[in-house]
C-alpha cells in the first residue's frame, strides 16, 4: 500500500487529508496523480495545479520521482512558513 497525504488548501479542496492506494501499477508520483485525477474534476484540477508541491517519504519530490510500495507520498500547495 502507498499512503497519500494532503495539506492546507489542498486538504480543504479535496476534503481529504489521507488515503491509501494499492501500489500496483504505480512507479512514479505522476502515476498517483493520474489515478486520483479519475476521482472527478475537483481532484483532477487540484492535483494538476502548476504550483503543486509533492514529497516522497518526507523529501521534496517531482512528478517523475520513483515510488515504491510502503512509501508515504504527500501533496501540498506552495509552502508559506517562516
Amino acid at each position, binding site marked *: 500500500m502507498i499512503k497519500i*497525504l494532503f*495539506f*492546507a*488548501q489542498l486538504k480543504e479542496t479535496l476534503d481529504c487529508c489521507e488515503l491509501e492506494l494499492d501500489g500496483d501499477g504505480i512507479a512514479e508520483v505522476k502515476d498517483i496523480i493520474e489515478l486520483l485525477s479519475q476521482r472527478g474534476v475537483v481532484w483532477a484540477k487540484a492535483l494538476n495545479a502548476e*504550483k503543486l508541491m509533492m*514529497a516522497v517519504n*518526507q*523529501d*521534496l519530490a517531482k512528478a517523475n520521482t520513483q515510488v515504491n510500495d510502503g512509501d*508515504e507520498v*504527500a501533496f*501540498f*500547495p*506552495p*509552502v*508559506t*512558513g*517562516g
Partner: protein
Amino acid sequence: MVVVVQQADFDLNQEYQTLIEGNQTDGAVVTFCGLVRDFNQGHEIIGLTLEHYPAMTLKALEKIEAEARERWTLGRVTIIHRVGDLDLGDQIVFVGVSSRHRKDAYAASQFIMDTLKTDAPFWKKERTTTGPRWVESEMR
C-alpha cells in the same frame, strides 16, 4: 545543532545563550526573528494558524541546516518554528547562527530563512478582519 518545531513560544535571550555559552571561538552571532505582522498581502491580520506536515518538518529543517553547514564555516545553529494558533505580534520563527566570520553568519542565516520559506512544509492560514484566508506563496 538545535532544530525544534513547537507550539510554545521561544525566548530570544535563552536561544542566544545557547549559541554563545562556552563558545569562545565565534565572534559573530546573527539572529532572525519572524513575527505575526498586522498587514499582509492587503489584508488586516488578527492572527494566524500554522499548519505543518509533522513527519516532514524536522527532516526538512535539518536538511536546510546541513546544507548551510556545507556552504559556510558555522559554529552553532538553531532553528525554531512554531505551529498552531498565533496572535498578532507573536513570534513565529527563530534562526540563530554563530560563526568565526561575520559574513558566514549573515549568509547562512539568510540562506536558512530563504530555503525554509520555499522548502519547509508549513502553511499559514490568516484570521483577517474579512475572514480566514490561506497566505499566498511568494515563491519566485
